[in-house]
């Protein structure tokens, strides 16, 4: 329109023309207005259209009423949806959406289900029908979420007629455009009066994205196990003296109108949680019948399928609580979940029994403190009444039905189902196992075991192998790309390029070497973890598999040793270099300490020798980490199995004796003696030698001589060294005195005693 090169070119008198042009447009506007709002706009009288549609719907409904005798209310709503569902199932080729991530929210549909109604864990058709029956006399509001999937719902006009008083917004004409704002018969945000399960299922079938909003009032989202309603499951809802910090409010159900008032136009999409919640409100009963998978691995061991499943979530309602010692059910050691009324949590969480005991103790302490502070037992009543007061005054209470809360909790809990609780929950289980072992060890030393050793059994879901096939539709071209957790999209392509530069600097080489060592350490660690796991696997495996397991284990141990010493198949292991590299790193030392118990005596002796040989170097490197003492215990275990010859050579290595005559000092020995680890190791070796000598009278003469010579030299050195230079050892074995007494006279013996603090009374 404006063909001027720049603003300056625009002459002033053009303005009039522009205004004229605008004036012309005004007339157009009038015409547009007419088209939009006036006579031209009314293509179709929405009210008329509505009447038409309503008649359409009423006819089949009326027919059915006549046929069915009017008593079968439940089929009224069921049938249109069922028909729809059937049509949809026919459309989708793979009626079971293979992607377990999607189906997680709703359990997989059995294709054989009648009418396509889902046997999800949230309901069974029977339950659904039952619940819907009494509520059907009121209106059935449309599902806003559903509208996204099925834009034209013939049922809507009918509903609107039934309850015009509820209508807040005038209806717009139905738009054939998918994704446009839904037509609502009821104001947005009104929760449904009855459950409409099949609607939700249908929309799962549809590939269109479904938006489920979380319920609004999520005050305290349930944590892992604490949420099942006390009034349903437990006997004592608010029993804790402290007052349960997260009180479960007993919820009177608000009427529909009250709800609508409260929520106003808060949100759409609130349908779905309510639907679920209402239907799934009966927590216990429908579930076991439709969830055998959950208990596949564990049926024999758990209390009962129903009880077991409930136990997974919370306390079983039926059996009486608080049988503290002897639970009902098979196996006295299996019952890890016992509802205890006076607990910190009114319903049981899936805690390790040791953990629960610790918590309980802590609670007792707190309770006692509180008791002393507050004075009387009447506190309990006081707490209760204050709770009730709170509940009365709280204007935001009871916005969610208990069923809705259950629904939310179930979602979370389902996500926690694991196929392999040992791996998924590794830390927790092992931590408490260790604690129990410790306390068991302590108790055995004391009196007999007081508490029963209970094990934690985690329910295990059977692993379902899913070959994920993306959703397909009949007659469509190509496939849908739906990416989910199981089928993620690759976003960045990173290619690994290995560097093969020739002009690497020395530092880089050193760094690479270190990295190489680190990688070796990690590989060896994984082997180690595997090997440590073999015991458990052995117990779980069948008889026939066991030799194979043992073989694998041996192989892995050999691999570990090779990794440690530097793989040199067919070569003599001449250098300790590789081993030293590993030992310079803190992780490496810990690794060696853990591997030692698995190695054969020769291999272990080899490691020990290598350590002794290079001890000063190691000591220097360990100055910062100070982690060498962790090796003492495994070394001492190894020493038990060593013969005298090896022990002798060990002492040789450690003390670097005999030395050539020309060497005035013995830096090796000095370094060893000055270091805590070194000194302790020396003591251990000496003590072992002494043991061997004193116990075994038939040692060869040659070895005896060697040993004696060594001892003489060693004691000489020890006498020579100033006391200040000696480190403080971890432990001083008691037989050192007898050792030294063989080789030195009494005076020197006394000297040695004082210097080395060999007599315990002195300290």
């Amino acid at each position: 329109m404006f063909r001027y090169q720049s603003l300056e070119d625009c002459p002033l008198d053009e303005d009039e023309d522009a205004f004229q042009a605008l004036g012309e447009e005004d007339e157009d506007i009038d015409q547009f207005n007419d088209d939009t709002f006036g006579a031209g706009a009314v293509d179709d009288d929405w009210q008329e259209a509505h009447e038409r549609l309503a008649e359409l719907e009423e006819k089949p409904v009326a027919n059915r009423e006549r046929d069915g005798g009017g008593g079968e209310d439940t089929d009224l709503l069921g049938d249109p949806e069922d028909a729809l569902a059937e049509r949809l199932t026919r459309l989708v080729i793979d009626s079971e959406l293979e992607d377990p991530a999607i189906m997680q929210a709703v359990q997989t549909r059995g294709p054989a289900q009648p009418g396509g109604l889902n046997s999800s864990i949230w309901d069974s058709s029977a339950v659904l029908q039952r619940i819907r029956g009494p509520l059907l006399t009121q209106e059935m509001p449309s599902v806003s979420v559903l509208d996204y999937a099925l834009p034209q719902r013939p049922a809507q006009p009918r509903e609107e007629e039934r309850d015009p008083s509820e209508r807040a917004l005038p209806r717009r004409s139905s738009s054939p455009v998918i994704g446009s704002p839904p037509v609502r018969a009821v104001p947005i945000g009104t929760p449904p009066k009855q459950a409409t399960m099949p609607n939700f299922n249908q929309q799962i079938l549809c590939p269109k994205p479904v938006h489920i909003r979380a319920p609004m009032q999520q005050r305290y989202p349930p944590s892992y196990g604490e949420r099942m309603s006390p009034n349903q499951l437990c006997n004592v809802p608010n029993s804790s003296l402290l007052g349960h910090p997260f009180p479960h409010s007993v919820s009177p159900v608000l009427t529909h109108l009250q709800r609508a008032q409260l929520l106003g136009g808060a949100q759409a999409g609130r349908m779905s949680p309510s639907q679920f919640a209402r239907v799934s409100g009966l927590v216990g009963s429908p579930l076991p019948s439709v969830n055998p998978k959950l208990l596949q691995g564990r049926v024999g061991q758990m209390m009962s399928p129903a009880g077991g499943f409930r136990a997974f979530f919370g306390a079983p309602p039926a059996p009486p609580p608080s049988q503290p010692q002897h639970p009902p059910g098979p196996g006295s050691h299996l019952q890890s979940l016992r509802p205890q009324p006076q607990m910190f949590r009114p319903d049981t969480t899936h805690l390790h029994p040791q953990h629960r005991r610790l918590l309980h103790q802590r609670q007792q302490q707190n309770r006692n403190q509180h008791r002393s502070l507050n004075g009387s037992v009447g506190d309990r009543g006081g707490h209760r009444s204050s709770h009730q007061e709170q509940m009365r005054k709280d204007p935001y209470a009871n916005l969610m039905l208990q069923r809705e809360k259950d629904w939310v909790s179930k979602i979370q809990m389902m996500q926690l189902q694991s196929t392999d609780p040992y791996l998924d929950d590794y830390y927790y289980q092992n931590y408490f196992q260790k604690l129990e072992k410790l306390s068991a060890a302590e108790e055995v030393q004391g009196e007999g075991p007081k508490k029963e050793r209970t094990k934690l059994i985690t329910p295990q879901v059977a692993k379902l192998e899913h070959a994920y096939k993306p959703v397909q539709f009949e007659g469509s071209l190509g496939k849908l790309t739906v990416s989910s957790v199981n089928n993620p999209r690759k976003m960045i392509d990173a290619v690994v390029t290995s560097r093969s530069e020739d002009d690497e600097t020395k530092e880089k080489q050193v760094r690479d070497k270190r990295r190489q060592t680190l990688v070796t350490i990690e590989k060896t660690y994984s082997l180690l973890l595997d090997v440590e796991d073999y015991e458990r696997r052995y117990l779980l495996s069948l008889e026939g598999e066991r030799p194979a397991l043992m073989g694998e284990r041996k192989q892995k141990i050999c691999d570990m040793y090779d990794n440690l010493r530097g793989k040199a198949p067919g070569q003599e292991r001449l250098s300790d270099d590789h081993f030293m590299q590993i030992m310079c790193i803190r992780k490496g030392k810990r690794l060696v300490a853990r591997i030692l118990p698995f190695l054969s005596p020769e291999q272990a002796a080899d490691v020990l020798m290598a350590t002794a040989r290079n001890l000063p170097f190691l000591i220097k490197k360990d100055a910062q980490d100070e982690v060498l003492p962790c090796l003492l215990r495994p070394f001492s275990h190894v020493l038990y199995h060593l013969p005298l010859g090896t022990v002798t050579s060990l002492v040789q290595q450690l003390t670097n004796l005999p030395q050539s005559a020309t060497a005035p000092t013995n830096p090796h020995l000095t370094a060893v003696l000055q270091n805590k680890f070194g000194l302790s190791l020396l003591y251990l070796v000496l003590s072992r030698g002494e043991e061997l000598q004193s116990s075994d009278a038939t040692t060869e003469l040659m070895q005896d001589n060697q040993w004696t010579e060594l001892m003489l030299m060693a004691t000489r050195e020890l006498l020579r060294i100033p006391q200040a230079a000696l480190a403080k050892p971890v432990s001083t074995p008691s037989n050192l005195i007898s050792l030294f007494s063989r080789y030195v006279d009494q005076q020197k013996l006394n000297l040695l005693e004082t210097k080395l603090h060999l007599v315990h009374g002195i300290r």
Partner: protein
Amino acid sequence: MLVVPKGRGLVTGVWADPEVGGAPGARAGGGAGAAAMLFYSFFKSLVGKDVVVELKNDLSICGTLHSVDQYLNIKLTDISVTDPEKYPHMLSVKNCFIRGSVVRYVQLPADEVDTQLLQDAARKEALQQKQ
């Protein structure tokens, strides 16, 4: 949150995970979801202990760990704000719920943690993820 060092090789490619949004829950059937379970398991063992939670908005809350869920949301009871009370609005609060994504640090009692076991768990998890 703390970063667990991965001792394995490089991960080539970055995978878009459309489920991201505060819900890295475990799935019944996959090992990939187990990454989130390590710290969940870890915090479960700390339930009942006193911890200090530092949030990303620099608020530090000291309290007893009441519970944790798979998103590492934390419920604390009997809380007190550790730093000088420049957060006076917290004076009357006894219990709180903290969303996992806003936590920066959790300070733990050292003797309640078994670091070796934690390292083992992390290694196992890394192995699992690799598979």
